[in-house]
């Protein structure tokens, strides 16, 4: 009965309901858009870390992000490997170089990553299979997500990275992050050549793998005690938190998108409240009639809540659809990893339902204290 009443009440004024649904739907889409953009900045920061095989990370105390890591002496890796829980401690090198577009001859910033090809460092079958190939002098593998402004990236392309001429021997796929529009993987020896003979003793990241069943937290502590203060030991969780904090609080992009999320939520809440209040107040005479007829407050509360839920659910599905379309658009046009996930879809739905219920109930409070006769004389 309540369900039917709620539904009929909505269906009776089709246009008004449609306008309300449209308003709520666009607000929800806006929240999805801002959340997606913010999340993509965060995700970009971690894309590469996700493809690196490690349980614990050794970094210099100057570590800011993957492009600005600072360095520590290679000896620390040997010291780390001496601990019983540590299965391996491998060096990883990162830096920024200028890539020359082979056609336009323009320079663009490229993220270069180097590793010892005898080690398994990347969780990428393409790189694993190509380790011998990477050992050849002045050979690089390019990330397929490198932007087209870099020019031809096909196998066999010959160009310059920094001062050296290089050949593209293959490709892999990870993602270039928010800071860079292009990325490449090389062997450690080639890395040193690209960076004017920098010593491989200056390690940027130390990838620590622990024995099976070893507790990362416990061994992180053990390593901190064993190693001097010129290295930091981070678990994956700590690394994620560090990167996210840097991007959210120190980069203008992170701060601005973060504010965008807050704005979208505030605007969404205000407008949701406004739309629903208007709708409910419309029907106060009907509710007053029901009250006068003898229906209890609880009944009316149910009807209003059901109605509000209907509206939100009706708005949610098209909003989700629009959001997916917008995400696809941004992925294509802006090359950003904007993706929908179940947690976000669920959280937005839950938030919308919560806010809507709150609105509905607050409107009803007015009803409860009202004299049925009064409600008609408006």
């Amino acid at each position, binding site marked *: 009965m309540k369900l039917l009443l709620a539904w009929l009440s909505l269906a009776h*004024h089709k*246009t*008004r309901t449609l*306008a*309300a649904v*449209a*308003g709520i739907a*666009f*607000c929800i*889409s*806006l929240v999805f*858009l*801002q959340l997606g*953009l913010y999340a993509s900045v965060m995700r970009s920061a971690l894309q590469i870390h996700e493809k690196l095989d490690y349980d614990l990370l050794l970094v210099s105390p*100057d570590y*800011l992000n993957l492009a*600005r890591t*600072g360095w520590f002496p290679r000896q620390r890796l040997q010291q780390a490997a001496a601990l019983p829980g540590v299965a391996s401690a491998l060096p990883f090198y990162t830096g*920024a170089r*200028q890539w020359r577009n082979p056609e336009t*001859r*323009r*320079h*663009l*910033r490229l993220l270069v990553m180097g590793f010892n090809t005898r080690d398994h460092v990347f969780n990428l079958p393409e790189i694993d299979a190509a380790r011998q190939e990477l050992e050849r002098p002045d050979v690089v593998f390019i990330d397929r997500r490198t932007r087209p*402004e870099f020019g031809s990236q096909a196998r066999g392309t010959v160009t310059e990275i920094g*001062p050296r001429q290089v050949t593209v021997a293959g490709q892999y796929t990870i993602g270039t992050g928010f800071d860079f529009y292009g990325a490449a993987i090389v062997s450690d020896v080639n890395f040193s050549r690209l960076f004017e003979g920098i010593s491989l003793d200056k390690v940027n990241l130390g990838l620590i793998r622990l024995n099976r069943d070893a507790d990362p937290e416990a061994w992180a502590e053990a390593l901190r005690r064993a190693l001097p203060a010129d290295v930091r030991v981070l678990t994956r969780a700590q690394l994620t938190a560090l990167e996210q904090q840097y991007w959210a609080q*120190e*980069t*203008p*992009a992170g*701060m*601005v998108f973060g*504010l*965008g999320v807050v*704005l*979208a939520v*505030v*605007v969404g809440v*205000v*407008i949701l*409240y*406004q*739309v629903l*209040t*208007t709708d409910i*107040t*419309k029907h106060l005479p009907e509710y007053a009639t029901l009250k006068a007829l003898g229906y209890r407050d609880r009944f009316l509360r149910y009807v209003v809540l059901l109605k509000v839920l209907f509206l939100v659910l009706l708005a949610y599905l098209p909003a989700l659809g629009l959001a997916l379309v*917008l995400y696809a658009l*941004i992925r294509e*046009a*802006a*090359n*950003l990893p904007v993706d929908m996930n179940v947690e976000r879809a669920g959280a937005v739905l839950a938030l919308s339902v919560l806010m809507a219920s709150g609105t509905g109930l607050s409107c009803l409070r007015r009803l409860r204290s009202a004299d049925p006769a009064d409600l008609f004389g408006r």
Partner: protein
Amino acid sequence: MPWSRVPLAWLILTHQKRRFVLSLAGIAFAVVLMYMELGFLSALYDSQVALLQQLNADLIMSSKAKYTMAINEALPRGRLYQARAVAGVADAYPLYVDFEQPSWRNPGTRGSRPIRVLGFNPADPVFLIPEIQARAEQLRQPDTALIDRESQETYGRREQGTVTELSRRRLRVVGTFSLGTDFISHGNVVMSDKNFLKFFPSSRGPGPNLSRVELGLLKIAPGTHPGTVAGVLRTALPPDVHIQTKQEFIDQELKFWHDNTPLGYMFGLGAALGFVVGIVICYQILYTDVVDHLPQFATLKAIGYRDRFVRRVVLHEALLLSFLGHVPGLGMSYLLYGMLVRATGLPLHLPPERVLLLLGLTIAMCTVSGILAARRVITADPAEVFA
């Protein structure tokens, strides 16, 4: 008479106080959203050319390979001497820029952060910023620099007298100035060319250190025209340098940021969505008002008032809503801009053009809704409405 109708629109709108306030709030927030998104968008563009705007130059010489300030491409210093010899050129100043290498140590937390460093000859009036010119003499001392007050908080204390490290060399701050951050550099430091070369000696390419001039700033002789002198310079100098007027150089930079980054796209999308949200909300408000007062409108029609009259009342309502909703939206945006500027150092302004644009958009938004809502009344048959 238009004036006699305004009170009717006003009375209808304000009939229910609570709903009226809510309607204004809805419009105001849609307006805030558009202001913020457009604010971010222009902060992006304004910030990237803030430094260029403050350069004392009629013409700018850059390496042909330098297509954006985001890429370091030096030009040979000799070109500056060659430029000075050309008729119409009064002077040529070198400017050194590095934002990749330098690392500033926060004196309090001891953490290091990348920072942009600008080097110039203190005898040259390179910057249009008076605070830099005033301290030029002090910059001649070894290991001294000025720092931008608007640099992000993470760089720490920065007042005159602060001693800290720049790329692991001791440095003393002899003063501050105001410029602003951008999406690449979160802080700015200015020092003499001699100090610059001492702090950052490693060359990125072949040739002596002195050749790493990033920009050549040219002043033309009085009475000459920048375009003409630029033309002469282009024929006189080798093709490895680009000669542009200051405005052309700025436009080139703006175009780069416009064409090559997703940020503009995303802020634009946010603003567009805000506009659509605004239209839907406004429509909802006006439509509800119309339907509520359908008997009254029908009565007016029965008396003999034309459709045109009714439509005009609704449109007046729309106009009132747009103005009254815009003002609190503008106020809130002003406050939010202030907060953001303090937090990020980005140049967020509220130029009159944007206020006019957004006021126009708000009016458009409400007018479209008004026209759509008015259709409902016009199609109403007076007799039916009373039945």
